[in-house]
């Protein structure tokens, strides 16, 4: 692996080829906020909170730090007017779903995001996918997944798998930045419970 030198927030940072901007920054003690990132999981690039500004080949661009591979002489700014503004709006969009989510409060304060800017949406989930990806990549169970697409996308437990696998695991619970996951699980549980009052033979 060859060594690469890049500049982050005016500081010269050494990184290895194949690292992302986020990894390079973390190794140099520079913090970049993340929501959908997790060390044990493949980079995903969905929340875009790690958006940073880069200068490469004479152009300025916004990119996701968790995905963008480091390049020699790359110039990165983890804060700029544009970066801050983008993060603020992204937070406001997520706060419309989860206005009280613990994982969003500090960031909201830092970037001056107004949790009431957009009308409250009918879901607590910000679809960071930590639960889905953890279950698939680390536990290899796929007990929870995404369904539908676009603005109708949601996270649900697959009852048939969840009813077998989730009882003694629940490792995804603490990953959830909102209250959505446990609620979804409880809902699945409630829907799965067979009715005790009616035995199948009485259904005639």
């Amino acid at each position, binding site marked *: 692996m060859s060594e690469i030198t890049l500049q982050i927030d005016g500081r010269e940072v050494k990184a290895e080829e194949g690292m992302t901007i986020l990894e390079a920054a973390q190794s140099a003690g520079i913090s970049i906020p993340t929501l959908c990132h997790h060390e044990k999981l493949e980079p995903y*690039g969905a929340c875009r909170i790690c*958006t940073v500004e880069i200068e490469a080949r004479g152009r300025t661009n916004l990119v996701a730090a968790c995905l*963008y591979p480091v390049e020699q002489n790359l110039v990165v700014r983890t804060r700029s007017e544009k970066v801050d503004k983008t993060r603020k709006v992204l937070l406001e969009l997520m706060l419309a779903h989860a206005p009280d989510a613990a994982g969003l409060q500090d960031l909201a304060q830092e970037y001056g995001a107004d949790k009431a800017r957009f009308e409250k949406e009918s879901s607590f989930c910000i*679809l960071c996918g930590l639960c889905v990806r953890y279950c698939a990549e680390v536990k290899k169970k796929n007990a929870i997944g995404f369904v539908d697409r676009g603005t109708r996308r949601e996270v649900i437990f697959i009852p048939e798998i969840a009813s077998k696998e989730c009882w003694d695991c629940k490792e995804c619970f603490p990953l959830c930045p909102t209250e959505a996951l446990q609620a979804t699980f409880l809902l699945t549980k409630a829907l799965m419970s067979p009715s005790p009052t009616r035995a199948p033979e009485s259904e005639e």
Partner: protein
Amino acid sequence: MPKINSPAELEELRKGILSNRDPNKPCITLCSGTACHASGSKEVAASIEEEIKKQGLSAKVDFRKTGCHGFCEKGPIIVIHPEGICYLQIEPKDVPEIIFQTIKEKKVVDRLLYTNPSTNEKIIHEFEIPFYKHQERLVFGSNGKIDPKSIDDYLALGGYSALAKVLSQMTPEQVLEEVKKSNLRGRGGGGFPAGRKWGECRNAPGEIRYVIVNADEGDPGAYMDRSLLEGNPHSVLEGLTIGAYAIGSHEGYIYVRQEYPLAVENVGIAIQQAKEHGFLGDNIFGSGFDFTVKVHRGAGAFVSGESSALMTAIEGRVGEPRPKYIHTAVKGVRDRPSCLNNVETWATVPLIINKGADWFAQLGTEGSKGTKIFSLVGKVNNTGLVEVPMGITLRDIIYKLGGGIPGGKKFKAVQTGGPSGGCIPEEQLDMKVDFDELAKAGSMMGSGGMIVMDEDTCMVDLARYFLDFLSDESCGKCVPCREGIRQMLKILTNISKGKGKEGDIELLEELSQVTRDASLCALGRTAANPVLSTIRYFRDEYEAHIKEKRCPAYVCKALISYYIDPEKCQACMICLRQCPAQAIAGGKSQIHVIDQEKCTKCGTCFEACPPRFGAVKKISGEPVPPPIPEEARMIARKSKENE
């Protein structure tokens, strides 16, 4: 069929096919593309076959069911060769007359010809019809001449000669250079230089490389790739194989929408035929080059047309885009170098090889070479597919080829580039159409969709429509795209319902910026284009909706009312009888009045009122005048005898 092992054998085969064909023998071609199929060409085909037999002409005339001719407005279309006599909107009952008159008696059936609407003059030949006359049909032209299910038809026109030339006379590097020199840019959307992409893929590390045809065309109103794949599948296969040779790939994919059944069928047949002839498979033309193609049927998601999503789908996973900070040409399908171009781009390649990069590069503009197929639809007289050189003006496309706006209405804007494109207003109609000019105007080439809109189109409603489409079709993975579109759609819906607020336009602009800057893939990065371009050119319409609660185009239902002008109403009962909501009061000789509470604003009364009365009016942004008092509603009619 013995395999063709050399260019010489190919030439021999071609000569053999031609020697069995008399160029002077009449040949009836019938457009059997999807649009004509929908307007009844299958029935027409059956009656042509029957009638040829009935009139004992089986040996004297050929009949060929071809791909799309492009003039879909006037389908089903018959062109009789060698003269090129063109009959439009044919029904089965016209067939006996055509066969008898034109084939037997060599006479033209006047009533089936194209009539020039401005001069009323009848036009006999296809190439003289204005819709065709101003086109340069280099890629699309063969569609009307060949039966897509017959490889012989393609070979007769010199098919696979470019592949033969490449494999026998050129090194892969030379092919790559030729494509680079031609400055061919990808016809699928972004306009990325094809040669550069090929080079990047060729030079990327790895043993296995893929070439891919993107036939996942999904823009509302666009169907050029579909028609090309349906009508001339071998041209796409030939281009793909040439590309594979240049890139060093031995496996190709055609990713085609399952909803394009004819394209799936025809490309499947074409692959089988090409294999039998040895144009696909091992040791093509005895050159030692091997290449196979698989068809991957897409399950109908707009976002799967995005290259990285398409490649994810080929891997058998959900078609969601991946970050492309490393190009798919380097890391694509199964992380291997993968070169993807759309149908039209691949189909252009044999042409460049046969006629040369210099010939290609002299067509078009400085930055955009060659021709482009556009799908011209919407409020335009001649809807259909047109192929024109880059650099033609929008005005020429819409007026010279498209024949202008129907019904004497005024042109308002043209939406180019599909849901991620933008609207271009009247004052920019003289813009020369190419990749860069469209981008400068806030729109894009996209795959070449062109939706023409007249004065009856509300631009806020239009932006709302496209955002609604995208909110369904976004994969929903990243926040700026999913949530940005959701919020923009909400704001636009509110504006169109009269609930717009001061500051909404600025908020839309702010959301557009974030969606554009921070989204993961091109769908999100361009999703705001319909919003931004309509705000840019039609801000006054947004303001009228927000401030005056007025829809200037009288489209947004919540902002309009229907009103019967008592001065003009003749109490004819027509609107009253047709109103589905029974919202119109009145009677014979009694002026009609709309009950605004009951009215559902369906517009039936507006359509029903005879134009000579013109009593029903649309009102927006002002209160509906109070109904005239009951006692004043009687009309004193003169009795007929007194007139």
